[in-house]
């Protein structure tokens, strides 16, 4: 379980650029949860995730990983980064080794694992992200954009973190690449049963994937609730500069028109299931 207590972070303290990026955030994420993190640029979501894996130190407040303050022993902060894995935006920019396999092994080897163990982990991670085995011996710079992205994600998964944070993993991918990657992430989450935190600008993607959603606005945790409940609060989302998925908007309007449908419908499948009986009944009555 990962928990924050009154977590705050200020940038450039003591200069005219001082800014409070994260304010008094207190949240609890249970083991095995799939949490979506949304908020527009400058809402503090990037700072929050960097705090969660100890890349930056909070100005005040605590981050508890399994009940222990991650900054209790600053010298052991690297261990926290192995437990809370972080995939940055455009992670393909971090690839550097001669081969894809060696690159994925970088994290596990930093953990002090033997070559054999690291290799085993790397191969498993590559399989999780759907990277074909024959690509592993290639140079990472020969891969296509989508493949590079997967190799970079595999590099973090190979550390087998308890919590996996993904910052906009689908940014810049085409619809095909995006769908494949999201499917892989979901099956990774189901098989490993660990915690996943997905940061995304796409409401449709988050609606489809997450159990719970954290909405950040102006550095504060504005909402943190089940996905359906969050998307049923269209007004609150608009205040944070966000919107609901198109299908949710349609179902909300139909609900307002007096139809007995769920105003927090998140997928087209679900909408069809609800609408068909109503519409067919109407047809028969005519």
């Amino acid at each position, binding site marked *: 379980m990962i928990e924050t207590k009154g977590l705050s972070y200020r940038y450039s303290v003591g200069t005219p650029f001082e800014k409070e990026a994260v304010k008094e955030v207190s949240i609890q994420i249970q083991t095995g949860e799939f949490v979506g993190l949304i908020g527009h640029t400058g809402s503090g979501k990037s700072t929050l995730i960097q705090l969660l894996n100890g*890349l930056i130190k909070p100005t005040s407040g605590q981050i508890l990983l399994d009940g222990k303050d991650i900054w209790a022993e600053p010298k052991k902060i690297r261990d926290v980064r*192995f437990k809370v894995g972080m995939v*940055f935006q455009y992670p393909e*920019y971090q690839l550097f080794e001669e081969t894809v396999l060696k690159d994925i092994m970088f994290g596990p080897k930093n953990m002090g694992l033997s070559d054999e163990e690291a290799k085993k982990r790397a191969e498993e991670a590559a399989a999780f992200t759907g990277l074909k085995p024959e690509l592993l011996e290639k140079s990472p710079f020969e891969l296509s954009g989508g493949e590079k992205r997967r190799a970079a994600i595999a590099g973090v998964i190979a550390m087998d973190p308890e919590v996996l944070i993904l910052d906009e993993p689908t940014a810049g991918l085409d619809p095909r690449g995006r769908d494949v990657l999201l499917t892989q992430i979901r099956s990774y989450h189901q098989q490993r049963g660990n915690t996943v935190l997905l940061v995304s600008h796409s409401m449709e993607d988050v609606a489809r994937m997450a159990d719970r959603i954290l909405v950040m606005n102006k550095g504060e945790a504005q909402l943190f609730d089940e996905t359906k409940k969050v998307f049923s609060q269209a007004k609150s989302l608009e205040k944070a500069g966000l919107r609901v998925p198109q299908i949710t908007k349609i179902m909300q309007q139909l609900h307002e028109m007096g139809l007995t449908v769920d105003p927090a419908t998140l997928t087209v499948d679900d909408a069809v299931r609800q609408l068909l009986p109503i519409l067919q009944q109407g047809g028969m009555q005519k």
Partner: protein
Amino acid sequence: MMDITIGQFFPGKSIMHKIDPRLKICLTIFSIVLLFMAQNFLSLAVAVAFIFIGMLISKVPVKLYLKSIRAVIFIVVFTSLLNVFYGTGEPIAQFWVFKVTVNGILNSVFISTRIISLILASSVLTFTTSPTQLTDAIERLLKPLTYIKVPVHEFAMIMTIALRFVPLLLEETDKIMQAQKARGADMESGGMVQRIKAMIPVLIPLFVSAFRRAYDLATAMESRCYHGGEGRTKMKILKMQKSDFFVILLVLILLVVFLLSNRIFPPVFMM
């Protein structure tokens, strides 16, 4: 890391900021020449006063000037110590092989004033002139060199691009370092060799990305019809103002005062 600014431009609206950048470069060179031509304390004082006036009307906080001196303080201390012990004439104090003479002390005061003033003079220039103005002015001042086939425009373009991309690459270095740290890279501990090794995961991605950027930039420049300096015009034309000529007049008067004071007293500095 994020807040590094290139050059030390301090935006403002003082007279110093408004002087034509070409003239400002010439004035800076002029004041440095004066510093080196000064032979006695009076003429040195005239040169220093000239630089002080520049500092005063630049309206840049004194704190910033002090900061720029701090960077060279080691050199100043070192050279003045050397000078103290290498003077000529009667020693006023002596220990072991070191002799301190009046001439040595004077020499060391003279030379440290020179170095500090030199830094101050160039600071006045960089504090009050934006990097773009500076590049532009240098390109125009050096323009005659194109006749002897010096690629002045190309150098200026390289400088412009460097100024534009250095902050970007710094930011990128920061991002890559964060990403590698998240994968457990240890960049803070270990010996020299280990630390250099630890930089590889940062440097390689940085180079790859720099090449990508260079490729994109070349495409962008070419598709915006860039074809070198030939036939190129400039939006901003540098034109000397009335006030600029006024400055030149003042400087000429100063030069006369300086030359006179150089003659009145015999030189102090001999080496």
